[in-house]
């Protein structure tokens, strides 16, 4: 069996070099301050994102540039996968499934809008990825399907067919894809946790913590959104909670749900689990928008803290790969958000609060 050094020495060196190329926060600050989309794209001229300007100039279509970013992100996972040992490859495959599930959810939303809501969807179909990611899903056929049964059939041989089949009636009775999408997310995380459990002990410990924190953050975000925007009862929210979280116990979820000021409750949670971050969270907020921004900042800080902990620790483990994916995803999300914000002329303060 390969030791950690032979498994991770090369990829560790490679990814640490790549991490040094990730755009620093000051560039995002400059992008937020850029007075136009052109100015923002000009700021990226000496980075790996220089070709976004070429795509935008050639098509006039920012979504095409975004699609390119998505393809690039998938290629990133595939590129790293090539350098890994079989056990670790399985984990990267499980992580790659997030793109497939997002793509499938997108296609199902288009189908749902076209067929059930009777809306025009033609301008959205072009931004669905047709190339196989993990499974060979016929996306054209899914987009053109006549019913959920057909979609379930088209997803046959993948874990998604049964989910689509199981929740198709709920979608029709509730007129919402929410439960089906939650089930697909659960499927992603359960397969990810299975892949983690197949890793050796050291890797498993690292992955359980980082992915567990990711799950915590996803759950916190859902509890806040489902309560604030949809006013769902606690029981309904609990059905959406993804198992496998690292810190978040049922009592914290209850507390978050009951709290009048979610940010304050979250601050208590952070003070208990991440005392080093509590100084950052001393900000008082009054408006709900500012509170939500604060909550997002808290979550981002927790994620950053976990990644920094891994990067400063033992180098020859799965941690470096997972940390790189987290950092890269954050970078790409920020780029997408900033370019869209510039395209739609959002206020600088608003953009900065989202960073």
């Amino acid at each position, binding site marked *: 069996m390969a030791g950690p050094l032979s498994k991770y020495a090369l990829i560790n060196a490679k990814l640490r070099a790549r991490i040094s190329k990730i755009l620093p926060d000051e560039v995002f600050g400059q992008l937020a301050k*850029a*007075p*136009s*989309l*052109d*100015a*923002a*794209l*000009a700021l990226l*001229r*000496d980075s790996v994102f220089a070709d976004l*300007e070429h795509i935008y*100039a*050639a*098509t*006039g*279509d920012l979504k*095409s540039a975004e699609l390119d970013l998505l393809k690039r992100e998938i290629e990133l996972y595939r590129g790293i996968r090539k350098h890994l040992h079989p056990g670790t490859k399985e984990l990267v495959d499980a992580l790659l499934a997030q793109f497939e599930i997002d793509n499938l959810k997108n296609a199902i939303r288009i189908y749902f809008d*076209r*067929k059930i809501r009777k809306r*025009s969807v*033609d*301008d959205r*179909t*072009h931004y669905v990825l*047709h190339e196989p990611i993990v499974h060979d899903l*016929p996306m*054209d*056929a899914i*987009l*053109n399907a006549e019913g959920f049964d057909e979609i379930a059939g088209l997803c046959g041989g993948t874990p998604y067919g049964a989910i689509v089949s199981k929740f198709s009636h709920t979608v029709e009775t509730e007129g919402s894809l929410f439960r089906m999408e939650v089930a697909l997310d659960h499927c992603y995380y359960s397969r990810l946790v299975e892949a983690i459990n197949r890793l050796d002990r050291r890797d498993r410990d690292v992955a359980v913590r980082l992915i567990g924190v990711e799950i915590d953050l996803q759950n916190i975000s859902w509890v806040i959104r489902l309560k604030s925007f949809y006013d769902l009862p606690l029981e309904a929210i609990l059905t959406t909670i993804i198992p496998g979280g690292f810190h978040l116990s049922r009592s914290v979820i209850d507390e978050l749900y009951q709290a009048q000021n979610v940010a304050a409750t979250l601050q208590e949670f952070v003070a208990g689990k991440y005392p080093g971050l509590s100084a950052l969270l001393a900000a008082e907020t009054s408006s709900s928008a500012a509170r939500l921004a604060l909550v997002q900042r808290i979550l981002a800080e927790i994620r950053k803290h976990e990644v920094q902990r891994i990067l400063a620790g033992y180098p020859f483990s799965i941690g470096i790969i997972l940390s790189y994916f987290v950092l890269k995803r954050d970078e790409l999300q920020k780029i997408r958000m900033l370019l869209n914000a510039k395209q739609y002329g959002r206020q600088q303060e608003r953009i900065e609060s989202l960073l």
Partner: protein
Amino acid sequence: MISTTPMTQLFAVVLGKDRERVTEALLREGVMQFVSTLDVDLEEPDKLSPVESDVSLSDLSDLRKRVEGVLYTIGVVPRPPQEADLRDRASVNLEREGNRLDKLDAERQAVRERQRGIQQEILKLEDIKRQVSVYGLGLSGVKLDARHSVLAVQTGQLPASNVRRLDEGLHTMPALHMELGREGDRTHHLLISMKRDREQIAEILSSVGWSDIELSGEVLSAEADLLDELSGRLETLNTEQKTLQETVNELVKKEETHLRELWISLRVAELCSQIQTHFKSSSRTAVFAGWLPSSKKRRLVERLTEASDGRCYLEWHEADSAEIASEEIPVQFDNPKVLAPFQMLVCNFGVPKYGTIDPTPFVMPMYLIMFGLMFADVGQGLVLAALGALGVRSLRNNEAKKGLFHLSWLVVWCGVSAVVFGALLGSYFGMPLIKPLWFDFHGIVAGHGSGNSLISNIYDVLAITIYFGISVIFLGLVFNWINIIRTRRWMELIFDKGGLLGGWMYGGGIYIASYMIKHQYKEFPSGGVLMLLAGLPAILLFIKEPYHYYKHEHGRSDRKPNPAMVILDFLMKWIVELLEIFSGYLSNTLSFMRVAGLGIAHACLMISFFTLADMTSGVFSLLILVLGNVLVIGLEGLSAGIQALRLNYYEFFTKFFHGTGKLHTPISLSSQL
């Protein structure tokens, strides 16, 4: 050159009416790094307020960035302003220029909307083309796998006058129609659409008078035509897209000259505004302060006096005056251009504190000697130098890749060093073509002898590197003493690990070690000598902790310390310090053996490749030698470069260099954006 550039601080008061001209003079000279006037001892600082400007810095900056963004779309990156631009400076009407830019943006946006429309059309046709390529149309008698095809294919006729309406109706959806022929005022069409749109398609077809007809024989061969048609349309759309992109670019190109000029004016105004943010003003005066190299003082005085017609008050504070902490003084290097690659290596470690020794001029010879000893080969050195020269050539005008440019120069220097040492040690692509000028390194490694009576085996080579290491460490210690003397830290000079006692023990250790080697490890120097060289400094070192205790800690705490514990603490610290000195200096010195180690590895690799080449013949033999050289140049070149850097950083710099200085960053016309 050995120390950082002497700096001086200026505190100036000018009349409010001269403010603009003084600002321009400061920008033109570009030597001042401004500091807050609060840092300067003023009698009534509360009476001063920030300078108010008609135009805000952020407005100027925003407009400049917008212009830059627009210019970038046509691949133009504006050059920094020149002195003439400052001289011919015209004021910028931000509102008018903003409106002009808005108008240009609106025109470009309109074209981009059309581009977006065409892009949608392209994506639609690509969707159809993908489907046709995968499943075909079933027109050639081959039955489609209808379960998976999402295309609906139908043929029919409609009045020729309605074809335009059909086009318009199908515009928003992925559909393609192709005229197959005419019969009077009716045209025959083949229509391909997505099955999912069948309801909307049916509505459109009925509104244009479409009637389905059976496929005729000649249409059966239409599949290939259709793919051609699709490709043709895609090509047309792509051409149109390119034309529109050109149109957008043309719109910018028409304004290019104006935009370039505007950018320069804005940049100059922005820099002036940036300078004025450091000014404080009273009712009639403006005050500012900052650091500049002492050598620029005279010229700046002339320029400021000229700009203010002599109506200015200038007060100078020399950097070495007692009231200024050296941490606050910015650092400027004072090295010739030729040392730029080595200055880059120093900066990578840190910036020397003001007034301390700048190691750059010493790094150059030391780095190159270390590299040369590890990578001694004339042929390989020439290849390295040539590669570096290529890099220099391609990067010489690229301001954004200045670091790579310096790195290329470093490669050139390393190549030259390898050539010199290659000639000294007699290696030409691993072959002894010419008699070595010093000794035959390959000969020693291969066990053939060196042709030099003084250096005859591997141990002699190792000894050379040890002597070299001792010299480097002693140089580091001497620099440390100079730095300490300059900053008048006398106790540190004596008691620090890198101080006089440390140096005494290191020198003593070297003498004792060489005495033992000379006597085949069988004899120590006499007790008196041992006492003088190692015992006495070790005992003197014991004074350090009690001195420190009585000077800084004694009597400060309310609790009375236990005397036994205090003495024990002194003893522990003394023992730890002694251990650190002995083990630290020993490992630092032996670390230099890696220079010989890598040199030996280099020679061994070349010998191995020659042995392999001898086992074959002809082309294979040549191929092995070429590949071997390539591998050695790549692998050994990198290793030697890294190890030479490591030795400089960890064995030399750590003796005296703390890297806590801050670079002098004046506001000038070429300031970084």
